[in-house]
């Protein structure tokens, strides 16, 4: 694999086709679990692991699966991998398993996982597919974490609360009280906070895109026109 290919895959996953901001797939966990940074990172990484494995597993068998039954086979593979991850977490990372609860098995129903299996892994070699799964997963994790962090700060005035459940009692002091004596803003923690936060993040990304576009166009044309970005 060429470096440019790998770069393109990661650029796609993290920015251009970001699952959370552009494809808008997998919103169920995105909106439900992004009420704190630790929850968001944990589920994001679990999803990334599943996506890397599932895309990597689907690519090598893609030519053996008849077209008519590819979806059930993909779902089967994803479900098996999620259950394996669930067993392993239950056995060796019990704290985290308890925190994420029902959202681990729900990774199966996260459409971004099947979407990458269908649109990328079923047409590309294993390594590229695994990288694509990982890049998409990391893209989702980034959005989840930013959203989770912002909602936690606004909603509870803390950052990384609950980290001791994931990494053990000794990390309890890592919790940052961003705003001391904060009484909390429940809206940010509740589902509407997720919608509003995600809307703002998407708007922010679009604004950055428009600005970049305007810049390149201005560089191309010798006479820059003020306000052109609005039409982009």
């Amino acid at each position, binding site marked *: 694999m060429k470096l440019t290919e790998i770069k393109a895959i990661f650029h796609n996953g993290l920015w251009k086709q970001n699952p959370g901001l552009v494809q808008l797939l997998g919103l169920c966990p995105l909106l439900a679990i992004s009420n704190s940074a630790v929850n968001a990172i944990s589920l994001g990484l679990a999803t990334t692991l599943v996506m890397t494995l599932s895309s990597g597993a689907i690519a090598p068998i893609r030519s053996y699966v008849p077209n008519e*039954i590819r979806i059930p086979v993909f779902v*089967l593979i994803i479900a098996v991998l999620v259950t394996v991850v669930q067993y392993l977490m239950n056995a060796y990372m019990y704290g985290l398993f308890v925190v994420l609860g*029902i959202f681990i098995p729900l990774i199966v129903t996260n459409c971004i996982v099947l979407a990458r299996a269908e649109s990328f892994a079923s047409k590309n070699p294993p390594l590229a597919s695994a990288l694509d799964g990982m890049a998409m997963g990391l893209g989702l994790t980034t959005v989840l974490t930013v959203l989770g962090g912002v909602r936690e700060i606004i909603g509870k005035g803390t950052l990384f609360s609950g980290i001791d459940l994931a990494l053990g009692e000794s990390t309890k002091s890592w919790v940052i009280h961003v705003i001391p004596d904060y009484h909390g803003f429940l809206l940010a923690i509740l589902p509407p906070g997720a919608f509003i936060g995600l809307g703002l993040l998407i708007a922010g990304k679009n604004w950055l895109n428009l600005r970049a576009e305007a810049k390149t166009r201005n560089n191309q044309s010798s006479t820059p026109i003020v306000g052109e970005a609005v039409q982009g």
Partner: protein
Amino acid sequence: MKRIARSTLQTAINLAFFAVIGTAILAATFSLTHDAIESTIEAEKLKLISQIVPPNQYDNDILRDVKNLPADALLGTSAPTIAYIARLKEQPAAAIIEVVAREGYSGNIRLILAIRPNGELSGVRVLAHKETPGLGDYIDIGKSDWIKGFDGKSRITWGDAQWKVKKDGGQFDSMAGATITPRAVVKEVSQTLQYFALHRDELFAPTTVSASTHVTGDSK
């Protein structure tokens, strides 16, 4: 016609093949992690017991001093469960009972309760639940201190009619937008106290070290 039948069969075999492989992988993972999961859950349970019955309040081998409880509607159980009996100098200190609150928002909530001989709650904790993260999960000690509201309470503190969330005219707090979860927990705790009143003497009867308890002890 024959061709269609053949390709259908081939597809079915193909799908069955993947299903068999998937099942095999799951079965292997299950048997590999089963012991680890069991011992993790057991260790977690002991940690929980130490939260609801301070270790200095008993001196017996709590994991071997057990009573088998048949399934009971008051306990919300549909299969036999085990009660752990804590004793200090041979005198009963607390009965630790696992129960199931059946009316949770998303399925059963497994609870563990410690009841002192006088019918007072020594403590309550949630063992497992599937309540909505960030909403109904405040019954979990890791999320909030709500469950500590049961400490020291008994049927003498409040009559059975008072064992409800405040919204239903009872004594227990609940968070706005998530009353189903605490309602289920309060109801089950109240029922367990009623069960305890009926079965107190059986629970605290001296445990004869029988073959069956040996097996329970050894399998840990």
